[in-house]
């Protein structure tokens, strides 16, 4: 005896096993299936025949899942594009703002605070650190694909990971061991901080940003070259 509910349950299980997600789109496909079975049954088919026909018309689970994955990829690509534009804005505006603050003393802390009395060489040095931060940030983004093609995904991941870890270790060493050892004036501290903390940050951010931008929309290996 054909059991429609049991058959639909089994069909759902197969769709889930193939990776068709719930609640969207599986609920919608099930509604469609039930609608089709009802209409076919009204047209004179048995429930079993109507169900078989409806399942065939919906198509193979893998094919349906692939089509929905394409839709997901488009949405992911759009989100990544948004993040990319946001980071691009940050990578442009932040160094400009910081450089302006450091050199021209037009805003914030730098206007009346520590850098207001800084000597020219300190200000120039600080500006150079900020410029290098911006260059490294953008350089990582634009130059990632120029790195020699690393065929092994694992090797690429290890190299990337160790670069980022090295920067983090440097920060820890810089803040805990180097800075406390010296008696910097405020101006000197700002300059040293910009060189010691900010410029490696530019390198780390640039590498991360470049790596993400080089990743194809649907995931998969990083594009190089």
């Amino acid at each position, binding site marked *: 005896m054909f059991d429609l509910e049991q058959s639909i349950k089994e069909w759902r299980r197969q769709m889930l096993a193939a990776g068709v997600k719930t609640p969207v*789109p599986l609920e*919608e496909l099930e*509604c469609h299936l039930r609608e089709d079975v009802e209409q076919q049954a009204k047209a004179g088919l048995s429930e079993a025949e109507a169900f078989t026909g409806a399942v065939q018309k919906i198509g193979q689970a893998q094919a*349906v899942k692939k*089509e929905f994955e394409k839709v997901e990829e488009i949405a992911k690509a759009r989100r990544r594009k948004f993040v990319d534009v946001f980071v691009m804005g940050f990578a442009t505006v932040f160094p400009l703002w910081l450089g302006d603050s450091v050199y021209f003393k037009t805003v914030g802390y730098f206007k009346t605070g520590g850098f207001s009395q800084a000597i020219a060489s300190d200000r120039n040095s600080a500006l150079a650190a900020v410029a290098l931060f911006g260059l490294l940030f953008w350089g990582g983004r634009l130059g990632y694909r120029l790195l020699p093609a690393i065929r092994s995904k694992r090797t690429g991941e290890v190299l990337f990971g160790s670069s980022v870890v090295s920067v983090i270790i440097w920060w820890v060493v810089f803040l805990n061991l180097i800075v406390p050892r010296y008696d910097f004036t405020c101006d000197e501290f700002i300059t040293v901080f910009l060189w010691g903390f900010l410029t490696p940050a530019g390198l780390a951010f640039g590498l991360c940003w470049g790596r993400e931008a080089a990743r194809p929309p649907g995931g998969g290996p990083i594009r190089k070259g």
Partner: protein
Amino acid sequence: MINKELVAASTEPLILSLLAGGESYGYALIQEVKRLSQDKIAWTDGMLYPVLHRMEQRKLIKSRWGESENGRKRKYYSLKKDGKTALDRHHQQWSLVHSVLSAVRPPRAIGGV
């Protein structure tokens, strides 16, 4: 039967055109296209829904869950403002293609093929 690339290319304008006539749902859209094309355009049922989702992501249409006449859950789709604009653009493009085809091959030549 219609060439499958042409079926694929015409899916979006057909959905937009059908929804321009009012809110509808997946099963009804498929049946209406079959009826209007006298079964010459037969969409794969399961493939319609990824297209609908993609159009919804592009903000051409919107959806809501409702109930059918017999109380079953049903997802209804309707046209958004951007969808109306896209529809107008599709109509212009398809009309252009049709007019060029008609100019190149007069109607009596098409019937004789």
